[in-house]
């Protein structure tokens, strides 16, 4: 079968599977819609969290970013996994014991204030919308590259699928679809990685192959350091970024991960506090399988790309280079007219332009694997984008139906609330689709934005809300607003208002916009603490609530007011 047929077949089969699961597990009550009835097993929740977490950016772009930044790319690897340690140890068990449905629920109750709840809803909506637009764009890109459809059509098809299972199934439908999506995406990521690792280093485990030796007996990473240095690039295992910047970016990504509402809410779906802890462990283990393979895919990809193009005759290139030239992900320009490709660090002399997404998307072709593997990678990328989009859409719809409608109209019936949640989900799908077709910026930048906001708004107040009995509503509201305003201003200034000034010389203390969430978080902590100590302590019943969430005993299923 040819490539296009395989791709349509595999993508079609996985879509049918997701729809089937959605019909089987559709939600009948608000409890099922918001937290899947609170009866998800820790293992299933771990799988669902991993799929929820790993987005189009993790699947398609992360390895490519590492390929071109080498050691500097470590910030994503450590940042997007280390956050789970914070989540598991500092937040998940306590939020599960608290036992409501959403992050604004916790903020509103713990800080005994609907004002705090509304600030939290605004943060949640802001974070989720910036993030979901990137996912929809990712779906569109996959469609256009593999299925030869325009990006707009890809986004519309993606919207239709998500609409179907998120609106119908709510959290219950999303959870079981995500379990299937994890299996699809991890299989799709590992199959090409294993084959390439074998071809290059003789070791079938990519994580070990990264430390293996290439055919001439030199370790792959040393070989790569040498090749890149000869071409004028930084060594692969050395970095360009300063230590403070690396530190701050990693911290912002870790803390942002722990503060993302669509990830936190997954821990409300398990029956017990014990299960919340365990499922965080499972989630990170499943995520780590992809995240430890990614640096191997990255190094193999850049090595193969250079070996098969650098100083090679333009008329004698491997078929994958020619294929991906047509999608404009590879560009060749013979500037010096010698009939060969020079891949060089110097932009004036460099003749090869490679998009970072190539490293994953073209990996099956680079390794000369059969057509079904190419189709599999397309289905995997789609699974990664759809699973994350669905989780985010749920946060958006829940925020509107529960945190806004239910809070201010507590008398509405369960049935009506469910209908509002579905309408909100439908509206969110449409809006996300619009942003997918007319993206507000590059996918990666938008995602960096979401992390900075999560780090500077939610994480500090949730953490202090659990570990301090003195923090009050005035402190929490002031802290969230200070962190959010500071971070939004800094990122907007360097990314949108004056992008020409976005260099280390202009940054405060050398901190790039990607890492500024760390400083926003610190500001939130300071303001939250300071304001709390200048204003009265929280009431007795709130202090009692804090004591109760600190011990696991007596956790019922996530319940309504």
């Amino acid at each position, binding site marked *: 079968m040819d490539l296009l047929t395989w791709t349509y077949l595999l993508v079609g089969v996985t879509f049918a599977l997701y729809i089937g699961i959605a019909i089987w597990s559709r939600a009948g009550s608000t409890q099922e819609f918001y937290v899947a009835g609170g009866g998800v097993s820790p293992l299933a929740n771990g799988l669902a969290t991993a799929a929820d977490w790993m987005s189009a950016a993790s699947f398609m772009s992360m390895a490519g970013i*590492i390929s071109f930044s080498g*050691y500097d*790319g*470590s910030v994503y*690897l*450590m940042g997007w*996994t*280390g956050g*789970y*340690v*914070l989540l*598991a*140890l*500092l937040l998940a*068990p306590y939020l599960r014991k608290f036992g409501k449905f959403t992050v604004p629920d916790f903020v509103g109750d713990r800080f005994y204030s609907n004002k705090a709840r509304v600030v939290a809803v605004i943060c949640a909506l802001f974070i989720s919308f910036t993030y979901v637009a990137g996912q929809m764009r990712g779906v569109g890109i996959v469609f256009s590259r593999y299925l030869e459809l325009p990006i707009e059509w890809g986004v519309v098809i993606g919207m239709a699928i998500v609409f179907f299972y998120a609106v119908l199934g709510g959290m219950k439908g999303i959870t079981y679809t995500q379990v299937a999506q994890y299996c699809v995406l991890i299989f799709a990521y590992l199959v090409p990685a294993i084959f390439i690792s074998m071809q290059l280093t003789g070791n079938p485990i990519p*994580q070990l192959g*990264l*430390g*293996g*030796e290439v055919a001439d007996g030199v*370790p*792959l*990473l*040393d070989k790569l350091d040498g090749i890149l240095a000869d071409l004028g690039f930084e060594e692969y*295992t050395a970095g360009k970024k300063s*230590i403070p910047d*690396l*530190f701050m970016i*990693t*911290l912002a990504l*870790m803390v942002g991960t722990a503060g993302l509402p669509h990830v936190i809410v997954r821990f409300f779906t398990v029956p*017990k*506090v*014990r299960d919340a*802890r*365990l499922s*965080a*462990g499972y989630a*990170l*283990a499943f995520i*780590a399988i992809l*995240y*430890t393979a990614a*640096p191997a895919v990255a190094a193999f990809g850049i090595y193969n790309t250079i070996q098969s193009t650098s100083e090679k005759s333009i008329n004698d290139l491997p078929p994958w280079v020619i294929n991906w030239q047509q999608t404009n992900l590879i560009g060749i320009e013979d500037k010096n007219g010698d009939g060969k490709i020079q891949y060089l660090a110097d932009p004036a002399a460099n003749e090869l332009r490679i998009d970072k997404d190539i490293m994953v998307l073209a990996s099956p072709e680079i390794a000369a694997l059969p057509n079904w593997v190419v189709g599999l990678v397309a289905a995997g990328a789609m699974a990664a984008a759809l699973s994350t989009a669905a989780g985010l859409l749920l946060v958006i719809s829940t925020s509107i139906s529960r945190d806004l409608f239910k809070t201010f109209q507590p008398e509405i019936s369960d049935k009506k609330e469910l209908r509002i949640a579905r309408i909100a989900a439908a509206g969110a799908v449409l809006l996300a689709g619009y942003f997918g077709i007319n993206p507000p910026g590059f996918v990666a930048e938008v995602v960096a934005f979401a992390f900075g906001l999560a780090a500077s708004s939610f994480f500090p107040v949730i953490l202090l809300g659990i570990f301090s009995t003195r923090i009050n509503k005035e402190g929490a509201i002031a802290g969230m607003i200070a962190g959010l305003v500071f971070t939004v201003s800094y990122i907007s200034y360097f990314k949108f208002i004056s992008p020409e000034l976005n260099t280390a010389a202009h940054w405060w203390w050398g901190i790039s916009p990607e890492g500024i969430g760390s400083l926003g978080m610190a500001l939130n902590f300071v303001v939250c603490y300071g304001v709390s100590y200048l204003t009265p302590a929280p009431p007795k019943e709130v202090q009692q609530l804090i*004591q*109760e969430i*600190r*011990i*696991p*005993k*007596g*956790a019922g299923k996530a319940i309504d007011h």
Partner: protein
Amino acid sequence: MSTSPTKMERYWKKNLQTLAILLSFWFLVSFGFGIIWVEELNTIRLGGFKLGFWFAQQGSIYTFVVLIFIYVYRMNALDREFKVNED
């Protein structure tokens, strides 16, 4: 709630100690070995890897997974010891 305040305080204190120990390892393998001391560690080799680079791209992630499972095991034991476990 059947737990007396002092017992509750001891439970919370042990919990915080556990967190402090585990989080210092979390910090050490990522920010420490992977960023601050990466160049020093890169002079040591682990097979085909430079050690600092290995911690930044592989070792820290493996450690994170292990840390969470230690936490799960330790907290379950602590919950039973103080009889604050579920069912």
